[in-house]
């Protein structure tokens, strides 16, 4: 019986250790991507394939390979997103003719409100709906708004951990375009 108890105790301790390591690893991997981007390591952008916010289509970042893409995470209830939206609309109008693509990722939101937000600010580019919040997690996004600039080879060049600014975004796009 004593031997059985020792084995049981070891199993319980091992299980506890596995859970602990998994939890630590999970929290580390959550922000690994953004830390790499911030360090200028040009990590490949995580997959982003979401149902479109409007209509039946999908928004797939992989299909935009070859273009510079500005990925913006937002929610309609987020006040800084409201402040940022008119600038985003203006910058999309300015940069899209130069071949830059804009993608909105709407997360943690009521769909009708999100669609109303897009229409109110004339954000006339593709928006995906991150239904279960997994895209947000994969990209290490912890708040709204957050944006990334992805180069033509699918590497993340710049991370904006808050609202973008016009000059900052133009500079990030120029950096992504540099060979």
């Amino acid at each position, binding site marked *: *019986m*004593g031997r*059985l*108890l020792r084995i*049981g*105790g070891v*199993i*319980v301790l091992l*299980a506890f250790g596995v859970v602990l390591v998994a939890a630590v690893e999970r929290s580390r991997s959550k922000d690994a991507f953004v830390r790499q981007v911030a360090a200028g390591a040009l990590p490949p952008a995580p997959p982003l394939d979401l149902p479109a916010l409007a209509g039946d289509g999908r928004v797939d970042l992989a299909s935009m390979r070859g273009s510079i893409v500005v990925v913006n995470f937002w*929610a*309609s*209830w*987020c*006040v800084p997103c409201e402040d940022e939206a008119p600038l985003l609309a203006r910058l999309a109008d300015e940069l899209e003719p130069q071949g830059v693509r804009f993608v909105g990722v709407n997360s*943690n*939101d*009521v*769909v*009708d*409100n999100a669609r109303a937000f897009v229409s109110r600010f004339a954000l006339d580019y593709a928006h995906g*709906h991150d*239904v*279960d*919040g997994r895209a947000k997690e994969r990209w290490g996004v912890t708040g709204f708004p957050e944006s990334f600039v992805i180069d033509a080879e699918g590497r993340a060049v710049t991370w904006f951990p808050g609202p973008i600014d016009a000059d900052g975004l133009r500079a990030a796009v120029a950096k992504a375009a540099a060979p």
Partner: protein
Amino acid sequence: MRRVVLALALLVAFAPAGIAAEPRFTMNEIEREVMCPVCGTRLDLSHVPAANQIRDFIAAKQAEGWTKAEVKEALVAQFGERILASTPTSGSGLIAWIVPAAVGAGGIVVAVGLVLAWRRRPGERVAAVPPVALDSEAARKVEAALRDYDA
């Protein structure tokens, strides 16, 4: 008799409208069953903008006469299963039910084992003590002490 018939007619005419106007669930009830996806707490405990927005959505659907199940289904479609306060009993959600149950069962087995081992030890120790043979003097003293005790 005429009055009774009139009363019944009125009851029949207005009862369905009365029932339809009655909310099919209360806000308090559903707010305890739904999570805030941003802060990870129950909706009734959260007052961040995202939670308020979901609350408004539920209130609007309640006013439209939706059932609680319909509202929850619509919320799951927009936020995924994580919006529900109770873990689903199918798919990957099943793990969340099985693991704690298995750990609990394992814990009970270990605890029972420990209790059994603890109970057995004193008996083993007593059995391990060799019997002591008393000489006649000692036996006489013990007898005397017992007699004094009984008296």
